[in-house]
């Protein structure tokens, strides 16, 4: 048989992991979680962007007042038109022959207001009420009229005084200029943290389901006669993680493409930075949680039991999100809002964000807000990496010891013991 024997070195550990990861990747990227999930997420993003645009549009649309002038008050028509643009509204002025005509126009609704009387003491006739902006404009114009008259009477040139007044301004000294990241960081951080929580949860459960599906269908018996449990576990985590990463990337990219031109996010730079930080934390967080989920899932033999077996790990993830929502985001908001964080909240956030299972989500919030010193960021990464090493060792042991024990749920303590 030696002639037919293929090269035995052909399947090194790296190729084994590659083959397993490739199968997971190809299978999952054609699966529902990826295709439907991506389409729905991008559609939601597009909808959100469209809604934002509509809201901004409405704010930018200026109202036009139709104002009629009669008698001496007609002198105010020109100044009102001139002032309208700087006051943020448009005005359509018209000369009205008689007060009576004007009043009937107002009553009919073809005029918003009729201005009569003198420029110094105008009188506005409206149907039900006057727009405060229009009222303020009229008051200002009347005051200026009175002032100009008094200035002329005192022998001063109203034009000269006006230009002098217009030259006055206040110089503003900002002691702590808000950085762009501080302004938009909390929003980006919040979105990023939520995406991490969601993606780690979704793709973690894909891993758990996959582990038990292999166990339930007994494929694992064939697989483990040619690859080692650790290689199988690692290949799964890499393959499924890549699919999650690609989905996260597509959604983030679509988000950037949709939000930046519409002006929802004014700072593509900060957003891109946050996305890169988010990608790093996704990779680390996913590996950490995926290993824990795979190990706990391997304790059971039926797919229906996966969610109950993985409860300890999924609870940890939910707690992380609660901490983010209750502690980290308020603390960041307070700091970037210019105030001090409520007592102890900032310290609590810092401490919690250095505890490995919480780190990926909490650190992505803090880093997006730009308030993490470099050493703290590096320490967080180092701690997560160290815990990944630990979880790999423990998880692979639990996985290897449980994956071929079929039937009733295995206790963790038994799974950690050397296989009998």
């Amino acid at each position, binding site marked *: *048989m030696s002639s037919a024997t*293929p090269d*035995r070195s052909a399947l090194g550990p790296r190729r084994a992991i590659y083959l397993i990861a490739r199968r997971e990747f190809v299978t999952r990227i054609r699966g529902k979680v990826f295709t439907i999930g991506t389409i729905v997420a991008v559609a939601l993003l597009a909808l959100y962007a469209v809604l934002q645009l509509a809201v901004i549009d409405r704010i930018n649309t200026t109202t036009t007042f139709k104002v009629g002038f009669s008698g001496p008050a007609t002198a105010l028509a020109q100044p009102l038109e001139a002032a309208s643009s700087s006051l943020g509204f448009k005005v359509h002025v018209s000369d009205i022959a008689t007060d009576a005509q004007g009043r009937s126009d107002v009553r009919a609704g073809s005029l918003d207001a009729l201005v009569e009387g003198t420029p110094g003491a105008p009188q506005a006739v409206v149907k039900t009420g006057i727009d405060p902006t229009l009222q303020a404009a009229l008051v200002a114009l009347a005051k200026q009229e009175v002032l100009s008259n008094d200035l002329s009477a005192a022998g001063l040139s109203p034009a000269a005084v006006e230009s002098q007044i217009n030259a006055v301004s206040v110089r503003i000294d900002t002691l702590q200029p808000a950085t762009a990241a501080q302004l938009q960081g909390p929003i980006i951080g919040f979105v990023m943290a939520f995406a991490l929580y969601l993606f780690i949860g979704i793709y973690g459960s894909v891993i758990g389901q996959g582990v038990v599906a292999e166990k339930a269908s007994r494929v694992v018996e*064939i*697989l483990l*006669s040619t690859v*080692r449990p650790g290689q199988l576990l690692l290949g799964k985590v890499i393959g499924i993680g890549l699919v999650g990463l690609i989905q996260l990337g597509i959604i983030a990219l679509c988000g950037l493409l949709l939000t930046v031109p519409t002006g929802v996010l004014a700072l593509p730079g900060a957003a891109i930075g946050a996305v890169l930080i988010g990608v790093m934390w996704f990779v680390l967080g996913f590996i950490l949680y995926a290993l824990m989920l795979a190990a706990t899932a391997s304790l059971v033999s039926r797919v229906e039991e996966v969610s109950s077996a993985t409860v300890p790990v999924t609870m940890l993830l939910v707690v992380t999100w609660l901490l983010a929502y209750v502690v980290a985001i308020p603390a960041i908001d307070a700091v970037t809002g210019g105030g001090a964080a409520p007592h102890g909240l900032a310290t609590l956030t810092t401490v919690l964000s250095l505890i490995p299972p919480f780190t990926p989500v909490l650190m992505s919030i803090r880093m997006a807000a730009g308030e993490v010193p470099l050493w703290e960021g590096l320490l967080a990464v180092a701690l997560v990496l160290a815990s990944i090493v630990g979880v790999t060792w423990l998880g692979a042991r639990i996985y290897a010891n449980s994956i*071929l024990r079929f039937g009733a749920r295995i206790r963790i303590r038994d799974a950690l013991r050397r296989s009998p």
Partner: protein
Amino acid sequence: MAGRVLEIDRVSKRYGSVVALQELSFEVRAGELFGFVGPNGAGKTTTMRIVLGVLAADAGAVRWGGEPITFATRRRIGYMPEERGLYPSMGVTEQLVYLAELHGMRAPDARAASARWLERLGLADRGGEQLQKLSQGNQQRVQLAAALLFSPDVLILDEPFSGLDPVAVDVMSAVLREQADAGISVLFSSHQLELVEQLCDRVGIIRAGRMVAAGSVEELRSGSAPRYWVDAPGAAAGWAEEVLGATVVRVDGSRTLVELPTSTGDQALLQAALATGPVREFRRDTPSLSELFRSVITEEPAA
């Protein structure tokens, strides 16, 4: 490699307080079809899993060509587990190629081998379908293809015939025979004893984790006392007991099944029969494997 032997040498395994295997020893030679029979729970699957390295033995060794079996040599074993194990929603060809690659084959060779085996097993046009769309019997053929695809040196099949229709049984038998003739060591378990008797070069009977008999069916037969069917219509009841050491096993009308100790010649029995009148039949009874199996399994008390 011709002449390589798969040796299971005093392998023991216990699950908690339950002894699954107790110093189990046997060997499967190259080019040999070895049938592994025994009651449920006797340890057949456990033995196979240990050979595959899927389970660790508590004691004993598994050797291949005289060398302890290693992770690399295990890749040369084709395995068909009892509870069939493939991905239900994966395409047939796709997963065959995947499994072959995991056994060290390159993708183009794996694809060619997959096409060849699907053709051979009558599934040439099903390669693109999901496994779960196939019938039970066809899924089993795919499972067999998965075990054979990478041209293994050893084939281990746990209950390959269970659930197959007669045509599929013929296909499976032909393939196993062909593999053995090509020099591969083939070990399979089955409860279909007629099939095992017909197909196998040697048989091992396992009970409660011990090998109680191993050898060719002929050798197993030679271990038991010879029996003879005698049809002597004129004989009175109890005629055979006159012969030294003979025991009557069964009486069926005028026919009597008599067991003789090997020390007593069959001619003594024939003469005794002729003394009663005409003898219409005198025939050595060759017990079937199932009869041998039953006698071996029930004879010795459980250890």
